[in-house]
């Protein structure tokens, strides 16, 4: 979560310091009420069909409401991460409203056509009953992504530095890069699947390709754009070429490299899902395909949610790494 948002949240709850010690923050009370109301909405009216897990869902929502209320009692300085829930109260209220709408439109009134739009409790059912297969899919996807991404990022970075630094390398690689680079990595898919010995190797190659192109181009442009005076300073201080590359050019280009890494991560997700759907027969992309084939729409939504969580988590991780390495920069974008 962004520091700024949490600061605002803190400032907002700071205003509540003046409330008597035994009263919770009013926004938290409202949010807790919304979730307990949602719980009642799930539990009380009868379901149209025979959905499992209605009771469990109601209990879960009520539990969340209780947690939100409990967090509302905390003062500044107490249990920091839990107290931050106070700042999320407006979001929590809107979220409860949307979930309530979904519940009514599916399980209670059936406004949405049934097999395609399962109610929230069916999603819970998928997580409970099919978690093994889901976890296995996540594991396969992550393994494939990690291998391909690491390979592509490393190759792209090295190539980018080489092109940016050496005229000779640039002469030979630049035209190839210009001609082949813009081709979407998925276009290589049919070729890759019969050239490589296994579909796993083919997919790793495709993910690496999707990652490598943006990383190469941005590393290269980062190196090419380094302030020439940085080199002059180092040279008058006795630096040789290895110092100029490793300690001047690369750190100066790092902000660009990270832009490339972000773009590469985005396109590697796309390629990964397509490769899993068409060839690998494992991973979240395959799970989606499989669920659609069996008309198991609840499974599909569950897999989409997991996928969103995983992708967002990876992007967050990359942001953290960048913030760590580039803490010297001002005005970094917060994620």
């Amino acid at each position, binding site marked *: 979560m962004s520091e700024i948002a949490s600061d605002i949240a803190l400032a907002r709850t700071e205003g509540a310091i003046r409330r008597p010690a035994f009263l919770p923050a009013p926004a938290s009370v409202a949010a807790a009420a919304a979730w307990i109301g949602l719980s009642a909405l799930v539990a009380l009216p009868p379901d149209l069909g025979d959905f499992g897990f209605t009771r469990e869902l109601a209990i879960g929502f009520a539990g969340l409401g209780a947690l939100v209320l409990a967090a509302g009692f905390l003062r500044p300085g107490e249990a920091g991460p839990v107290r931050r829930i106070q700042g999320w109260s407006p979001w929590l209220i809107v979220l409860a409203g949307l979930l309530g709408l979904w519940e009514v439109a599916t399980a209670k009134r059936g406004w949405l056509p049934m097999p395609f739009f399962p109610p929230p409790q069916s999603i819970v059912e998928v997580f409970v009953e099919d978690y093994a297969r889901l976890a296995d899919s996540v594991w396969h996807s992550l393994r494939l992504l990690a291998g391909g991404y690491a390979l592509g990022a490393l190759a792209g970075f090295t190539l980018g530095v080489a092109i940016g630094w050496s005229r000779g390398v640039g002469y030979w690689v630049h035209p190839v890069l210009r001609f082949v680079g813009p081709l979407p990595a998925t276009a290589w898919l049919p070729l890759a699947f019969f050239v490589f010995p296994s579909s796993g190797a083919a997919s790793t190659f495709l993910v690496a390709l999707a990652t490598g192109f943006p990383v190469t181009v941005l590393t290269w442009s980062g190196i090419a754009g380094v*302030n020439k*005076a*940085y080199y*002059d*300073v*180092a*040279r*008058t*201080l*006795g*630096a*040789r070429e290895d*110092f100029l590359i490793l*300690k*001047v050019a690369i*750190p*100066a280009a*790092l902000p660009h490299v990270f832009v490339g890494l972000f773009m590469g991560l985005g396109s590697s997700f796309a390629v990964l899902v397509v490769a899993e759907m068409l060839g690998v027969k494992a991973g979240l992309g395959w799970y989606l395909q499989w669920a659609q084939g069996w008309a198991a729409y609840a499974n599909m939504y569950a897999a989409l949610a997991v996928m969103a969580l995983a992708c967002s988590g990876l992007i967050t991780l990359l942001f953290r790494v960048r913030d760590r390495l*580039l803490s*010297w*920069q*001002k005005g970094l974008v917060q994620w």
Partner: protein
Amino acid sequence: MVAGLTAPSQTPASAVPAPIPAGNPAPASGAALSLRDVRHAFALKKAPLPVLDGVSFDVEPGAFVALLGPSGCGKSTLLRLVAGLEPPNEGRISVDGAPLRGPHPSRGLVFQDPTLYPWRSVIGNVAVGPEARGRLRAERGRVEEALALVGLSGFADAFPHQLSGGMAQRVALARALVNAPPLLLLDEPLGKLDSLTRLTMQAELVRLWQDKGFTALLVTHDVEEALMLAQRILVFSDRPARIRADIPCDRPYPRHREDPGVVADRRAILDLLGTA
């Protein structure tokens, strides 16, 4: 030559003490510098832009020489050539009798812009020299000493974007000093300082120079600064630069701004620059 410029200085008894310490330069451990008919031009799209037009001068080991000249005349270019960052188109530059072959840590250059590395802390910036020469471990003490010399020990872990312009320039000075170069090239190192810090830093520069005995070549826009610091002042013409006047300036230190000799010299040099 301009008359009156070399008048012996008398220190008026009533003079406000300038913050420049007494004492004579240390026995020369500085480098000797010699330029012979140096010419340089930049290749622009239409025609070459001549910047230096036959510049010749010699600097004795341990001397403090100021370079004055109109903006854009080629002073920074001259320092870059002496630092060895570029070879001159024509002419010879030699240090201690040996012709230049590229940059060397024995010739420190303080750039007109501080050009600190934004990804390194202040201490990391000062440590670039020892690190680049692979002697960081042995010279750690010198890095801290150089930082203390410019009064920034308290900012060792700050990053450049957290510094004021003047502080950044002091870090750049420390970075050049840490290599203990026998020849120090200074390109308006005090240009961005407020007038008070500037006076202190001028005194500090003289003290350093007296202490270490390096040869100093100082580019400045400030005639008074040249008169307070240098033993000799070279005045350059408009671009392409050639030497218009070579003015000895051998008053003892500390010098005083109100010294009639200094005041007269200042007026004479300003006249000279005005008609450049």
